[in-house]
């Protein structure tokens, strides 16, 4: 077993705990895709072409509401703009890999893969094969996402809406930041973002996500001043 394969496998394993909510989310997307009238082909291909859950749900909702292509595409862009920030964080670890790798790994850069692989990259400052970890976490998530979407398409109307499985989405995001927000500075940033999201929820095109994230980042920038000086 060579070292690349070992790192790839570690990526696959590390992301597994985060997949539990991904399965119901994928199933929900499959069900909602069918209910929105996207059809099974478009619903299935959307999970491959976009491969970003919350924006896929936004796409389905907007399509049902009769939104035009520019509105749908810009909404997807807004919901996924957080990837710019993930991309910036991951970029510092991928400066030495080939363009082909950058393209493949960018496609796999989801919330969950970002969380586990960024953690691994931080621990491996000198490992030249560390990018295999992101391939492992990203591919595993991709595979499970496609299977869950198919399951959702098949199950369709069989799953009772009363189960409120969509609630697994905020719970997932809570579980992803729970360790960070034990620190008071992170908690301040998180509450700022959350409160802004509620206040600006009715802005058009789901832009509240951008407004809330910008507010959070701005507060973080202010807090980073004291953190930077503490380090010296």
């Amino acid at each position, binding site marked *: 077993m060579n070292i690349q394969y070992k790192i790839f496998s570690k990526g696959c394993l590390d992301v597994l705990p985060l997949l539990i909510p991904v399965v119901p989310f994928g199933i929900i997307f499959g069900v909602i895709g069918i209910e929105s009238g996207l059809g099974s082909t478009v619903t299935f291909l959307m999970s491959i072409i*976009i491969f970003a859950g919350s924006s896929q749900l936004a796409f389905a909702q907007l399509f049902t509401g009769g939104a035009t292509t520019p509105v749908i*595409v810009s909404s997807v862009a807004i919901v*996924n703009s957080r990837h710019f920030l993930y991309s910036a964080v991951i970029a510092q670890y991928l400066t030495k890999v080939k363009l082909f790798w950058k393209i493949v790994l960018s496609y796999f850069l989801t919330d969950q893969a970002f969380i586990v692989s960024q953690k691994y990259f931080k621990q491996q400052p000198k490992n030249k094969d560390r990018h295999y970890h992101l391939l492992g976490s990203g591919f595993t998530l991709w595979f499970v996402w496609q299977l869950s979407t198919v399951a959702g398409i098949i199950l369709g109307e069989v799953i009772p809406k009363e189960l409120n499985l969509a609630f697994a*989405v905020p719970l997932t995001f809570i579980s992803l930041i729970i360790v960070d927000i034990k620190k008071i*500075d992170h908690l301040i940033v998180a509450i700022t973002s959350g409160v802004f999201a509620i206040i600006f929820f009715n802005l058009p095109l789901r832009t509240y996500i951008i407004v809330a994230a910008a507010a959070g980042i701005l507060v973080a920038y202010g807090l980073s001043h004291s953190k930077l000086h503490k380090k010296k």
Partner: protein
Amino acid sequence: MIWTALIFAGLVTFFTRFSMIALLKKDYFSPRVKIVLGYVPSAVFPAIIFPAVFLNSTGQLVFLDNPKVLAALVAVLVGYLTESVIATIISGLAVLWLLIFFI
């Protein structure tokens, strides 16, 4: 029309992921920018969490008489104590189902 929307949505999503990876060179970031980037999850995820917990299906703010608020609070508490992704999600869903189906 739907195919155009799908292809462009896919391209734009890929672009958000590829953008900085394609552009940046080593040591592009100042120490301060690196610190701020560490706050990114805390700055973005609550924008998804808060509306999903505190708003009802018509976008109205509901604190009381909202089972999602109590379920989320229990999930936060369990997550705080266990630091386990699975325990956090399962406890939240379990409380939600308990409140919806049994109380």
